[in-house]
């Protein structure tokens, strides 16, 4: 019980910090509200989908950025636009902000800016992914121990 409470509290703190750090926004809460008995792991499923989709987009962007001197800014903008939409689905606030910055550099035809921005974006993305994975892991633990508690 004690342990359970402690984990539960930890979970709450962890989630709060994600919001405080600006990594997540209200959309994430929306997803949590959608979670119900029919879809008990809805949020995690959505986030997993997001990882898959965003990995694909990131690698496409990376490919496109390889054409160092002949960047197709339209294509980059399109890809990043998709990435923005995708990131908005889970409420990835910082990632989304970085996407918009990248798109601004695109429209300004600023290669240097694009490169820098993309690098930053990947960092933010990796950081968010790591934190979310830890969060869900803890959430699962709490869920399990709660189930155990109730079954007792």
């Amino acid at each position, binding site marked *: 019980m004690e342990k359970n409470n402690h984990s539960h509290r930890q979970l709450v703190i962890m989630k709060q910090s994600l919001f405080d750090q600006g990594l997540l926004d209200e959309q994430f809460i929306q997803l949590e509200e959608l979670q119900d008995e029919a879809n008990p792991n809805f949020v995690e499923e959505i986030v997993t989908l997001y990882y898959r989709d965003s990995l694909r987009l990131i690698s496409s962007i990376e490919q496109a950025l390889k054409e160092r001197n002949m960047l197709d800014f339209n294509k980059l903008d399109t890809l990043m636009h998709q990435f923005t939409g*995708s990131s908005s689905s889970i409420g990835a606030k910082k990632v989304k902000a970085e996407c918009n910055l990248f798109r601004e550099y695109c429209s300004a035809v600023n290669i240097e800016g694009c490169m820098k921005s993309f690098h930053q974006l990947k960092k933010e993305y990796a950081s968010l992914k790591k934190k979310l994975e830890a969060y869900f892991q803890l959430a699962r633990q709490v869920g399990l121990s709660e189930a155990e508690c109730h079954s007792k």
Partner: protein
Amino acid sequence: MDNGCFSTPRRDFPAGLRVLVVDDDPTWLKILEKMLKKCNYEVTTCCLARQALNLLRERKDGYDIVISDVNMPDMDGFKLLEHVGLEMDLPVIMMSVDGETSRVMKGVQHGACDYLLKPIRMKELRNIWQHVFRKRIHEVREFENFESFESMHLMRNGSDLSEEGNMFALEDMTSSKKRKDVDGKHDDREFLDSSSSKKARVVWSVDLHQKFVKAVNQIGFDKVGPKKILDLMNVPWLSRENVASHLQKYRLYLSRLQKDNEQKSSSSGMKHSDLPLKDVGSFGFQNSADKQQNDASIDRYNYSEGTLQHQNMETKSHESNPKGTVPHSITAEKVKAFVPLESEGKNATFQSTMSTTQYSWTEIPKTQLKKEQKPIVHPEDNFNLLPLHGKQHNIQVDQSQSIASISSTPSIAEQDVAGCIETKPRFADYKKDYTSSVSSIRSSVDTFPFQPGNLMMNYQPSQQAISTTNLGVKTQSYNNLSCISDLESYQRNLLFGGEAASAAPLDEDLYFYWHNMNFGQQSIGMPEYYDPGLLTEVPNHLYDSTDYSVIDQGLFIA
């Protein structure tokens, strides 16, 4: 969702609403699916636009509403929007992470009934049923209007309905809509009970539409009418109502295009407005209506002159006339409203005096007679009339410039004179409701030199005659002033009283057409803006009751 106000919703409407979601983003697709399911809607998801179109085509009437993302790899969301509007005539909601005004505007112009920004909240999805409901109401009303036009039974309904007033206190319904709601009270019963309301939904495929366009061009835009088109098209399963409805859409589309063109060269049109006003000046109808949007439509009505109307409409009645700029092309057609010449501003849209309208009608190319059934404008419909439209557009400008030029209406044929013509039918219906107000108008009408035959409504033959008569009218110091108050009250009656009015069976086309016209570009794509009730104000009063039948015949080109 509060369905309490529905008289007889389809069991548990809007639960069970069949939504088709199209989005290439798998994450969003899943989220939206979940959200919609939580709203008790029936959801089908699709990640490709082409796939979505196939689904829609396979199961005609299998969906109530479509939600689509704007940016998709295989097809532009706007294009999908156009296809859906043209072929299936379903309400479409666009969504995007990009909320730039120009994009939203484009969506609306292409016919989207709403544009949502991602991230989308569930509460935004809860209310999408309103778009379905709204459309149904319009359709049924349209249909009924049509019927009543022929049978005048709507009048009965109208008076019944008006008593009910705003039974449907749908929260999102504005007051203008309320009127419609009343009308749709019993309509709802019908269409809510079955997904296909009174009329079977016709899917206007590209082929079918091509046939339609061909027929229209063959007949001559100014002489066109549902029956003629139907005969020419030679499609056995197609009904006259279907054609009429499509024709209306088409006209709206054209007029919108025209308007776009006009706006580009709007200055030309605007200038003219001053002129006519002076000439017509005698008409000092107060646009009581202008306050209402309906007025706007009324203004259009007066526009027959073109210039006059335009001005008013454009300059002033912006409030009432979202589409102020339309005047040129539209004026001809829908000179519904009596736009007091002085419409200082209120009525900007109201075109002045009856006389103006009177002859404007005549001036309006025969083509104007189009009968448009469907009030809903789908500007995005891919009517292949662009070139035509352009042509018309030019002509219209000329038209507005001088009445004389109107004589050469044949070229203008494309113009959507429909507005004018349509009003006629309404007259008959309105007569019942507004006898008192009309009578006063009638007297004024009588002063017009126009004979029923001369009225534009008849378009065809009297083009030339009309122009001359118009001139005559113009100079004629129409003592409308005396009628103004009558008109005003009439208009008001129309506007408000009007369920019946809105039912305007006669010219639902006209009416809708106007309505759309009035709203300007933005509203074109928005069915909700369309308030049939507004249209009812049609200048029925312009016509002497005795002329009604004649007019009706003349107008009713079909």
